[in-house]
């Protein structure tokens, strides 16, 4: 089966958090100091930008790094930003 194995939110953020941050910086104009973003509260730029990205791709807008979002981020793509810049 091509179904994803179950993974907790912590697992996903631990494994893909850095990749997701880079993705949002590159394609969604997320401004960071270059350090990992902290706690994922609603005011956190990571959460806001992740929501923008999920909305753009028609994914469920959770603001959390879920399986479908990670899968979308891993797809080969164009280097031009999606929004921002």
């Amino acid at each position: 089966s091509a179904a994803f194995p179950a993974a907790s939110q912590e697992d996903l953020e631990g494994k893909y958090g850095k990749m997701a941050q880079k993705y949002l910086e590159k394609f969604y104009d997320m401004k960071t100091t270059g350090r990992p973003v902290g706690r994922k509260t609603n005011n956190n730029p990571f959460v806001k930008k992740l929501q923008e990205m999920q909305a753009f791709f028609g994914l469920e807008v959770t603001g959390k790094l879920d399986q479908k979002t990670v899968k979308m981020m891993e797809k080969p793509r164009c280097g031009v930003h999606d929004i921002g810049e």
Partner: protein
Amino acid sequence: YSTVDKSSAWQKNDITYKIVNFTPDIPRADVESSIKRAFKVWSDVTPLTFTRVYEGDCDIEIQFVSGDHGDNSPFDGPDGILAHAFQPGPRIGGDTHFDDAETFTKNSQQYNLFLVAAHEFGHALGLNHATDQGALMYPTYPSTDPDNFRLPQDDIDAIQSLYGKTSNPIQPTGPTTPSKCDPNIVFNAVTTLRGELLFFLNRFVFRKHPRGGESDLLFIQELWPTLPSDIDSAYENPITGEILVFKEKKYWTLDGFDVSQGPRSIAELGFPRNVKKIDAAVHVETLGKTYFFVNNKYYSYDEDKQAMDKGFPKFIAKDFPGMRPNIDAAFYYKGLLYFFQESVQYEYSIESKRIKQVLRSNSWLGC
């Protein structure tokens, strides 16, 4: 779709381009033809023309480069980012860079240069990324058949908003992306796949777990790169775990997400020559039979004997009372048959030979 302001688009219709260097992945002639065809995608629907120059200034400079190549947008090695292009303007404006760390092809293997180039030239002409999943300007690589590519309507609308329409008396139209809750949606084929449901429609497949969750819309070629679009019918044989997919007089065997065999002729299954296409196919687990629906008749195939049952084809109307000819799709789920005709779905009991419920064709997709 989304574009730059009209004032930021090219203020002329005759655009020049130069191929600065070539990828070693495919012969030069194939690079040239892929680039030329990618420009033609846009010139076919607008008054734009594209002329290749070999030296001196030009509007769109095309390069194959890798890593940090001096434009503040470094490439990232194989996969990930495939290419980028700059919006219209002087100097670097319009320039298009392909990541030379990728393997570019001229066939359906990733990454087809024509498809990548056609997308990037959209940027070079002033288009932004689109949210329409079937649009060429969607950000991710389009797993679609390059040989049968047609510019989607969303992209036609986008480019024509900047440059106007072609002067041809007949305006080109392009394919649109299906919306799962469109009340008029008509599926080409439906099948189960290891507990999931697949709804085939043109270039796309909706993938859904019957017990819940959102459906995914994918290109057929994203799951099975060598399958064609516009398939006619499909069914799952749960004993072998295989799916058979039919288009016109050919069929393919799928083992999960691998195309294990095909294309083969449907004559190998025992169909007579006059069968040009199979409208719908469904395997009835309890009987060990697969039914193939063709116009107003159906065939019965014995999966154990691997042969057509004698005495077929028979009339659909006789053995499936209530059902009309020309069934679009069918599948079997929990002891019941589901027939799709146009935008309607019939839940059918084999035992009582009756339609139990009439549903919308997209009821499984949460609509």
